[in-house]
């Protein structure tokens, strides 16, 4: 008997399609329209072709912000992903009070609004009233994130690690909990070392959640705005001015809508490219082992 083709389920995605169209596709199309025009106000627009794109692509400040952004995002991934895995491996398993307490403690930084995180670290790092700043000064380190670029960078990076490593750890923990005990029993019978268990059981089983963790952390860190804005305001100089802050200055500060729209599209394409590369690399890793 022939299989009956029934594609009516496709109609169920219409609400999602409409919401995505309303909240993402149409605004994105509008940004594309803005990017080729000089906007003076509603109804006062003049077609300028690719002028804004040329201006944006030849802008030295944008090049600097892009390099800073890439270094920052790669540093975030290099620290948060291994650290998150390590924390997940060290977390207690099963259902116990210890497990619940660990999960709650880990989830706490994730519940704090971005601007509050920036404020917490702004105070924490101050030499006069902050615990971190005062401690550094007490041990003889002249720590000052407001006038030293390296200190500002480290502080912004550590703040991000503090805020978001929990997310990676919780995702990895969920991945680890989904491994059936039979896998560990088989490894024990074979006399597998801890490293072998990690490399051939835990890591492959965490691949799915790691894809999500890497993509989320990459996209979020590449679009970071609030925390460094509150903590350092992009300074000292422009040393912690990342792409989104530069974009905001352009769009809201200078009200340069056309140029900001062109910038947004370049920014969007860069995020899309990096996410695609990461996704492809991670989904390909281990494919050979599965076959």
């Amino acid at each position: 008997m022939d299989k009956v083709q029934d594609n009516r389920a496709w109609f169920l995605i219409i609400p999602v399609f409409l919401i995505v169209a309303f909240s993402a596709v149409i605004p994105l199309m509008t940004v594309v329209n803005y990017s080729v025009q000089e906007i003076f106000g509603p109804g006062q627009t003049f077609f300028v072709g690719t002028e804004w794109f040329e201006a944006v692509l030849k802008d030295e400040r944008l090049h600097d912000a892009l390099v800073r952004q890439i270094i920052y995002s790669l540093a975030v991934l290099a620290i948060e992903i291994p650290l998150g895995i390590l924390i997940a491996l060290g977390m207690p398993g099963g259902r116990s009070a210890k497990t619940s307490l660990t999960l709650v403690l880990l989830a706490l930084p994730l519940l704090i609004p971005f601007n509050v995180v920036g404020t917490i670290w702004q105070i924490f790092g101050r030499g006069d009233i902050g615990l971190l700043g005062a401690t550094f000064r007490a041990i003889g380190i002249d720590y000052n994130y407001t006038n030293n670029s390296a200190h500002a960078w480290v502080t912004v990076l550590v703040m991000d690690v503090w805020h978001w490593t929990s997310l990676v750890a919780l995702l990895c923990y969920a991945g680890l909990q989904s491994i059936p005990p039979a896998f560990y029993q088989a490894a024990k019978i074979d006399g597998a070392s801890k490293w072998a268990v990690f490399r051939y059981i835990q890591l492959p089983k965490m691949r799915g959640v790691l894809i999500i963790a890497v993509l989320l952390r990459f996209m979020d860190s590449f679009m970071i705005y609030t925390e460094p804005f509150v903590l350092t305001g992009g300074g000292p100089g422009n040393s912690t001015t990342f792409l989104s802050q530069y974009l905001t200055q352009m769009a809201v500060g200078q009200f340069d809508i056309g140029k900001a729209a062109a910038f947004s599209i370049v920014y969007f394409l860069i995020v899309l490219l990096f996410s695609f590369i990461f996704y492809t690399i991670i989904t390909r890793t281990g494919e050979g082992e599965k076959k």
Partner: protein
Amino acid sequence: MDMDWMAWTTPTAIFFLCIALMLAGMTVWEVVSPTVEAKGFLPMRTTRGDRLFIGLLGSAFIHLGWLAATDASLWGASAVALVWIALVIRFG
């Protein structure tokens, strides 16, 4: 419905129309002849849709690179991009 707020221009309308036609065409092609994952010069196995995505993303960067590197007419970038998309879809 007043669409002034979207600030439409003829070139951007043509651009989106091309994208929409491309997606519609790919859908029809998929229904008529379902895609099979294939391995070409790209480092991974890809479906027809993957290759179109890679082709379009690549052509966006070809245009951006052209604008950043030269003052020559952008039609040159479009020609290179068309060749790139054709290569990726056929041999990717």
